[in-house]
């Protein structure tokens, strides 16, 4: 029996190793997808077809507040991982819940921006530029949504089962994913919002 458990342990660290590498590669493929979207956005930025240009529709302070919220959520997510390493269940739940709330807030802000644009007649059907904008920012938003779903399921599981090793692994990957989305957002903030000011 003893040999079986050491075997399982060995296999588990091996599996952890592989999963982490696999997840990193997945993140890189996702980055390529965002790369395509950034490229299309840059190409289509001037294709306004008589509609609004970027500087007419974006509200920089608003985008900045979105950015700060997402950055804070990344910070709380980091704190959650620290708590995870100390096996402190309450703190893990606490920090992840906070991350979750910040994430939801970000999403609501983003949706409100979308609906404002649409109500002004500037939907994605208006021009190539707006198509590219909605797709780039919307894809990021979809990723955030996926992350939130993942987070809520994990929170529920921790609450019920405690910090099992497989849950810890999932949470670590989730935090990678969350930081990754944060970095992508920094690029969005720069290329979409800041550049609109130039």
């Amino acid at each position, binding site marked *: 029996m003893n040999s079986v458990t050491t075997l*399982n342990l060995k296999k588990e660290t091996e599996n952890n190793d592989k999963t982490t*590498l696999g997840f990193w590669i997945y993140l890189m493929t996702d980055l*390529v997808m965002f790369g*395509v979207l950034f490229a299309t956005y840059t190409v289509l930025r001037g294709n306004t077809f008589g509609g609004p240009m970027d500087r007419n529709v974006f509200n920089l302070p608003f985008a900045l507040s979105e950015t700060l919220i997402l950055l804070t959520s990344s910070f709380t997510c980091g704190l959650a991982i620290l708590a995870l390493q100390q096996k402190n269940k309450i703190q893990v739940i606490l920090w992840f819940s906070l991350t979750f709330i910040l994430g939801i807030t970000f999403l609501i802000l983003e949706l409100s921006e979308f609906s404002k644009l649409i109500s002004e007649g500037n939907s994605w*059907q208006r021009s190539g530029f707006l198509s590219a904008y909605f797709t780039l920012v919307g894809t990021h938003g979809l990723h955030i949504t996926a992350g939130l779903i993942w987070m809520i*399921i994990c929170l529920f599981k921790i609450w019920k089962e405690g910090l099992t090793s497989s849950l810890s692994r999932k949470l670590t990957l989730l935090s990678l994913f969350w930081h990754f989305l944060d970095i992508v957002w920094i690029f969005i903030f720069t290329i979409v919002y800041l550049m609109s000011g130039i």
Partner: protein
Amino acid sequence: MNWKSFIIGQLTWADLPHQWFTIGGTGAIFTMLGAAAVFLTITKRWRWLWKNWLTSTDPKKIGVMYLIMAFLMFVRGGLDALMLFSQQVLTVGPGVLGAKHGYLDANHFQQIFTAHGDIMVFFVTMGFLFGLINLIVPLQIGARDLAFPFLNSLGFWLYVAGAILINMFFVLGGEFAATGWLAVAPLSELQFQPGTGVNYWIWSLQISGLGTLIGGINFVVTILKMRAPGMSLMRMPMFTWTSLMSMLLVISIFPILAMTIALLTVDRYLGMHFFTLNNAGNQMMYWNLIWMWGHPEVYVLIIPAFGIYSEVVSTFAQKKVFGYPSLVAAAGLITLLSFTVWLHHFFTMGAGADVNAFFGIMTMYIGIPTGVQIVNWLLTMFRGRIRYYSPIYWFFGFISTFTFGGMAGMLMALPPVDFQIHNSLFLVAHFHTMIVGGALFGIFAGITYWFPKITGFKLDEKLGKYVFWTWLVGFFASFVPLYILGMMGATRRMDHYSPSTGWQYLFLVSLIGALIIVVAVILQVVQLIVSIKNRRQLRDTTGDPWNGRSLEWSTPSPIPFYNFPVIPQVHSRDAYWEMKKQKNKSPIIYEDIVLPKNTAMGIYLAAFLFLFGLAMVWQATLFAIIGLTGAIICMIKRTFDENTEYVLPASEVEKLDKQYRLTV
């Protein structure tokens, strides 16, 4: 709310099969399925099929299933090809079956060549390659399974889902895209293709592409993380090396394809304007994106074939491969350079002389590492004692066709020349020479070479040589005329031309060549059947029928499900060759083995995504929601499933291993 369109979308009675080809296709599909079902019921094999094959996570079984599926799709794509050529021969005569010229009307002809190209690239060549990589790479690196066995099964089933989806318009009616295999915009936009054809293209490729991407990640991690102790990167067999490079390409470019298709999707479904003519879309962007994927993709297909040839040449010349480091470097350089040439697919589209010159030169650079490889193979054979078995025949065939096609490529890499022959049949001849004479011949070499390892018996050698010669003759007969036609000004994708051009007899030669290939394929099937019949005589009792060099030949044939009773220790390149030389057998110490359990979750997940894709084709909202939710639930269930592996105790391994060694 309109309930009917909520449930079945745009599908109407009028769409269901009513033309002769959809009725024929549907009939053929259901006859085949019916026959298979009857056979399985009579022989009481349903459970066996489900438990031993469909739900398996063993890469060897998944590999075989890939090969079977790819072969079925090969037959489908081949029928398309015959229809295309025969239309081109008959088009000078009076029209029949309601067509103005020949027997296919223009739109139908367009759908056929689109389907033909997509099927041959995505479902035949890719399918065969993934099959071979699944079968062989774990064995070559001394591993027992892949890094993510479940994802492997899922990737396979997504590939199957895509393959079925691309054939679904037979069953549900409608039409396929009439755009060419890359569905170039703006032609593929709603404005010009309002039907469901492009939707089928979108969802079929999106779903199977997801499978490919998953497979790519899986193989990269497997090769990087699961090599036997002692196997450093520079000790890996060439096929493993080239598979690694091909899979690195896959993970870098398939996201581009996925996004490009997604952008076309939102254009068509949500009225966006990425590539549309109106509202300031940008059509050239589609061309750039699709070829940034497309050119590296052709190297995804050919690079593993390079690896197969390296293995075959060194085994049958009984020498170690010449200049291993330079072969690796050449393959790596090709991998890198393949990112820098995509624009040669549209020199004629106004990029300007400087840009064209740059991409023309980069394209010609690729010829250098390719030439290095060819020289390496020739030098491997030099002073070797070559044994003339059919795998090396395929290599000889490849050398002649590939060099030929490469020269044609060099010609087109010169922009001024390309302006003359772009999108002519010359181009068609070029890429068929590369993909058929390069990638497909390599796949055939690989299948013949590794067949005994997979099944335990060799393929019939004499028939194998007949197969090769018939294929080669058929191949040249059908594609050399296309080079000539292209030079004479015949454009690609032509359903009709004037008889005064005098092209008909060349098309006739091509058609005859295609029919010779049909004979070759039939011979291949005969070869398989005859070999199964004579499997006693053809039995491979040693596990090493060709006096091989890499680790896969150190196992008994057919391979036990755990691959290696003990993970081998590697000391050099050509690991098994060195082991054979040393001969000192250290006693075997058996250990417990952890293996993945079977799972049906891959099938369920792919089935839900298939439903989603099909529903999206027809914009049947209800079924799309069901499909997507089902897929997400399956995914969540699987991630929290902890019970995915089992332990095979050392005593059991010992018992099985001794049994295997007794039978061989």
